[in-house]
């Protein structure tokens, strides 16, 4: 875009973004700094008094600093799960796209099945108890890997198709083994996809609520979404604290996004394959 067009499009984009995106964000932030009574009205209004600090302190100290424990647990959970997901699903996507085999149809179906069938909680717990994974953080890591694998494999498989086979062949001729081809040639070229997977999966796993609830019970195992239940129940909700909590737990994934979003686009130049 050049000159005037560029500014016109930009202005229009920001105008629309203001209404469509900024208004709801403003609602969340304004509610987070109100006092409890005003927040319970749930309207779009200016706070009569600002309670930024009070609300923040209350959210952080509630239930013996549960948010802090939860931050640590969720961070470990997210980082480990995403690291495993990236490597394992890229490997599957790579071989699945490259290797022609009569099994591919079945494998594709099993991968899609992961998106289509909700997991069965109680049999899974029985099984995890049987192999000693239940109630362990690393057990939950493996669960998250299992549940998010399909999504990542689909993404990788689709993008590996855009990497020319000739690159693999050139590397093979140069004497690279399968691991070399994959880790030194293919995976680096997939960096924009990997950045996407990291962003999307960190958000999903960091914000996961149901799986920690069932597979990782106990106070010391609290994860971040469970802290929302400190302020929200069927009968009474402290909306100001709930929204303050929401704002607080949105910051880490936002930082992840801000960092990796550059990487997605950094691929714009790296992605144009140099021959």
């Amino acid at each position, binding site marked *: 875009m050049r000159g005037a067009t560029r500014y016109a499009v930009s202005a229009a984009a920001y105008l629309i973004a203001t209404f*469509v995106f900024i208004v709801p964000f403003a*609602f969340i932030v304004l509610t987070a700094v109100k006092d409890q009574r005003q927040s319970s009205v749930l309207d779009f209004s200016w706070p009569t008094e600002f309670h930024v600090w009070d609300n923040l302190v209350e959210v952080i100290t509630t239930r013996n600093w549960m948010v802090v424990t939860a931050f640590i647990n969720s961070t470990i959970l997210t980082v480990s799960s995403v690291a495993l997901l990236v490597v394992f699903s890229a490997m*599957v996507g790579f071989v699945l796209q490259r290797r022609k085999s009569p099994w591919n149809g079945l494998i594709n179906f099993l991968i899609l099945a992961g998106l289509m*069938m909700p997991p069965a909680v109680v049999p*899974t717990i029985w099984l995890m108890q049987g192999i000693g994974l239940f109630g362990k953080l690393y057990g939950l890591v493996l669960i998250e890997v299992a549940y998010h694998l399909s999504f990542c494999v689909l993404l990788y498989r*689709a993008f590996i198709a855009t990497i020319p086979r000739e690159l693999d062949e050139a590397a*093979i001729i140069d004497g690279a083994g399968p691991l070399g081809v994959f880790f030194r040639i293919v995976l680096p070229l997939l960096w924009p996809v990997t950045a996407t997977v990291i962003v999307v999966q960190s958000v999903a796993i960091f914000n996961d609520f149901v799986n920690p609830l069932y597979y990782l019970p106990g106070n010391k195992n609290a994860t971040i979404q469970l802290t929302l239940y400190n302020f929200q129940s069927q009968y009474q909700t402290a909306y100001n604290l709930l929204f303050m909590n929401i704002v607080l737990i949105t910051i880490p994934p936002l930082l992840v996004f801000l960092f990796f979003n550059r990487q*997605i686009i950094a691929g714009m130049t790296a992605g144009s394959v140099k*021959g």
Partner: protein
Amino acid sequence: MAVITGTAPRSMPSAARRNIQSFYPAWFYLPAAIIYGILYLLPTFSSVYFSLTRWTLFDSTFIGLENFAQFFREPFLIKGLVNTVIFAVVTSGSKVVLGLLLAVLLTSNVVARGLLRSIVFFPVLVSTVGVGITFVAMMHPTEGVINEGLELLGIDGPGWLTNPRLAIFSVAIVDIWKGVGLATVIFMAGIAAIPQDYYDAAHVDGTSPFQSFRYITLPLSRPATVTVITLSFIGGLRTFELIWTMTRGGPGFSSDVIASVIYKQYQAGFYGLSTAGNVVLFILIAVLAVPLSIYLNRKEGHE
């Protein structure tokens, strides 16, 4: 710098080509297959047995296909089915179109691109609970900011979530709002993978921005499109969380989808019945999504 395309000359003798399979070893599947097979496939598909039982979690009685018969007798099943398909088509369609347009905008040289990208992606980060409560409040028929805004324009806003005919569409709008950032990021990755040289060449040839969108961006971001369609369509068919936080399938049963019907059975403690429901939903999704996926991937193979 040469652009490598699918028609580049083959550089390897055919005997070596046959051997190349060994450079894509099957053991690459192994770590993923073990985790996925043991922790997902095994418990999930063995639980299908419970769809044939009356199951309280504590004990189960075999009752044959009775749960399936009961599931199809659910009074609002047809309504739920129709809603599910409408919801999936509307949301996945919108996410594809809006996501692609936003991705083009956000990979162009729009002013303060990083900021705009963050704004669009932000809803993906916010917990569904927060989004649900926020929009329920904003969609309040008399005091919500949406209808107050419309009133300024002289429009009498509807009861977004209280009107039984409108509720499902209102939730769909919020779902698009929340999910479009995800589609956009995947499209951005897709556009990023298109070699810049194509655009440079097109620029030299004097093509208009629209033409380069139509003839370069659109066809070459196909992997991204396939992924977004597959993910958001299946996601739409299974959608539940947002509907549950915003309307609980109501008013009455008017915004029920299959997944919320199943969830209500689950919450009532009808574990066998809800497992049967999951099997039905699985078959429904498989019937709709597998042919779609095969179709999309086959076309890709031809190119």
